[in-house]
């Protein structure tokens, strides 16, 4: 495989990881919860789209829209029924809840659609190849990924910068109690951030599954890589997680090309190495903890 194609495929996969990392970061920024269920929630919503296309024969875009709405509702549902009732949970408690949610939805998906592998197709095929510059090949899929990622990031930027809800989200992130004092319903903000995260997650999951396969566990490894990307970026910054995603995608693609058998563990090696050197990520501003 030529270098240029490895680079572009790596960057496209990295953009998917970056998007999915965004889903993790959005929740972590507002409520300091690491959402271990992000992968499975995205899988659940992807299966909804799959079901609509395959069994009811709806066009892709309708199924896509429906899956986004479903994902938003699912995110709010999880926040409302599983996280809100927990009174002053510890960090371990939050991790246990989100892993519980992961098992719950994972089990439901397996129960409904069994563990069989399916093919999920989107209108952008990775087999249609363009050659914009001589020697540089880009699949239609990669182009779609770059466009979608750019659109989402731009929308998020304007959303956080200029809208009322976005400003309220940033306020909640900076200081929950102060935000409450100025009249922001922080509980509602949490629910919204879960909905946003879930929507971005399912978009990324659909792109990933159209490139690979669709089965109940297909988001497990992408989730860990996205998480590694988020950790690289310091779990707090949006540009950081995108850059981290790009780095992860490139490392994985080049390393996987050289040594295919060890491809799955590159993400973990990167996580552990980065954490050994910079315990709170590459781009995190180091903050002093109050004792």
């Amino acid at each position: 495989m030529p270098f240029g194609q490895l680079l572009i495929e790596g960057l496209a996969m990295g953009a998917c990881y970056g998007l999915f990392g965004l889903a993790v970061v959005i929740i972590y920024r507002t409520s300091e919860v690491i959402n271990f269920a992000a992968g499975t929630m995205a899988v659940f919503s992807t299966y909804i789209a799959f079901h609509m296309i395959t069994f009811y024969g709806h066009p892709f875009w309708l199924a896509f829209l429906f899956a986004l709405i479903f994902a938003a509702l699912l995110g709010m549902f999880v926040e409302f029924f599983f996280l809100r009732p927990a009174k002053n949970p510890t960090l371990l408690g939050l991790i246990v809840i989100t892993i519980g949610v992961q098992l719950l939805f994972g089990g439901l998906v397996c129960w409904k659609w069994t563990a069989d592998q399916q093919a999920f197709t989107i209108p952008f095929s990775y087999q249609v190849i363009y050659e914009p510059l001589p020697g540089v090949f880009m699949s239609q899929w990669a182009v779609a990924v770059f466009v979608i990622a750019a659109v989402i990031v731009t929308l998020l930027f304007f959303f956080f910068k200029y809208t009322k809800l976005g400003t309220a989200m940033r306020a909640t992130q900076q200081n929950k109690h102060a935000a409450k004092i100025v009249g922001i319903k922080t509980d509602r903000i949490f629910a919204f951030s879960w909905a946003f995260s879930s929507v971005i997650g399912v978009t990324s999951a659909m792109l990933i599954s159209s490139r690979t396969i669709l089965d109940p566990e297909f988001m497990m490894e992408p989730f860990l890589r996205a998480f590694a990307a988020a950790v690289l970026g310091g779990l707090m910054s949006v540009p950081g997680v995108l850059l981290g995603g790009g780095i992860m995608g490139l490392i994985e693609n080049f390393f996987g090309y050289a040594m295919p058998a060890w491809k799955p563990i590159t993400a973990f090696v990167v996580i552990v190495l980065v954490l050994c050197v910079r315990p709170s990520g590459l781009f995190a501003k180091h903050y002093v903890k109050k004792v």
Partner: protein
Amino acid sequence: MDMKRDYYEDIELFSSGTILFWTVVLLVALFAAPLILSNYHAYLFNLIMVHVIVAVGLNILVGSTGQIALGHAGFFAIGAYATVLLMTELSIPFFAALIIAAFIAAFFGFILGLPALRLEGPYLAIATLAFGLAIMHIIGHVELFGGRQGLMAPALNIGIPQLGLDWEICSEKGKYYLILSITILMTLFAVNILKTKAGRAFVAIRDSDIAAEVIGINLTIYKTLAFAVSAFYAGVAGGLFAFVLGFFDPFTFHLILSIIFLVMVVVGGLGSVMGSITGAVLITYLMYDLFKNVDEIPVVGDLMVAVSEQWLTVTGMDNFSMIGLGLVMIGIIIFEPLGIFGAWIRVKKYWKTWPF
């Protein structure tokens, strides 16, 4: 809740005659149990006891030292593979192999403890999770470890074949007595370690690592020690697990197993040895017996089969154990964050102070 008046009262193994009595009753019952157990139930008990060892060890790390660990299936796998390989490749006697394997696991625990010194919270969770998955992948790729085909445990010979002392254990009930004795030893060790200098240092680190450092506890030594001790437990349990199962492959030690271990400790109640034991018993029973055969439960089973046929798929019904475990995890944090042990304390307090 009980007031301790002096040091000797604190380090007593049995704080009252009642506890001593019930412990003896429990032990007698456990030793007599094989007389009435079927083979399947002896197997289930063996599995439960192996999980009790892991849970008790994990409790030292998660409950007493306050570190998050999502990679214990990795240590468990190291124990299982090392025990079997030492026995088959180097023909080392069982007990020596088990102890060496446990020390290998403890060494890996020490290694994982080093980055853990600098990490906390979500970062530690993801680093340990990555460790567990990496161990699973490495085992799956190395020829010596049987690759994805897995390994077969040899005959369980607890004598020393080199000296002509053969004592082969074939039946489930024989294994039951072996595992039971090791479980009792390990539990006793865990109860006692929490009453030593090291155990108090662990608890101090959990409550505040900065305060612990200020009063002169060496964080480097005690945090890595907690990881090593906990990994040692997982290693011993892994070595026994290999013989309970008889055959295992890398996917036996999937991430889900690490999660199950953590859930045992959380459900039982963090920081309490008795809690971890009850948690391990309960979760193992639910996961490996009740939820696994959910269609055989009288009324609920039929209902679930009907629901599956109507809206879902019948082949996917095995996954009910995942749903059940997930619900248990969410429920315990929402309704009883201190676990079974917390509930027990509440009942006890209510009983003792009644009618107030």
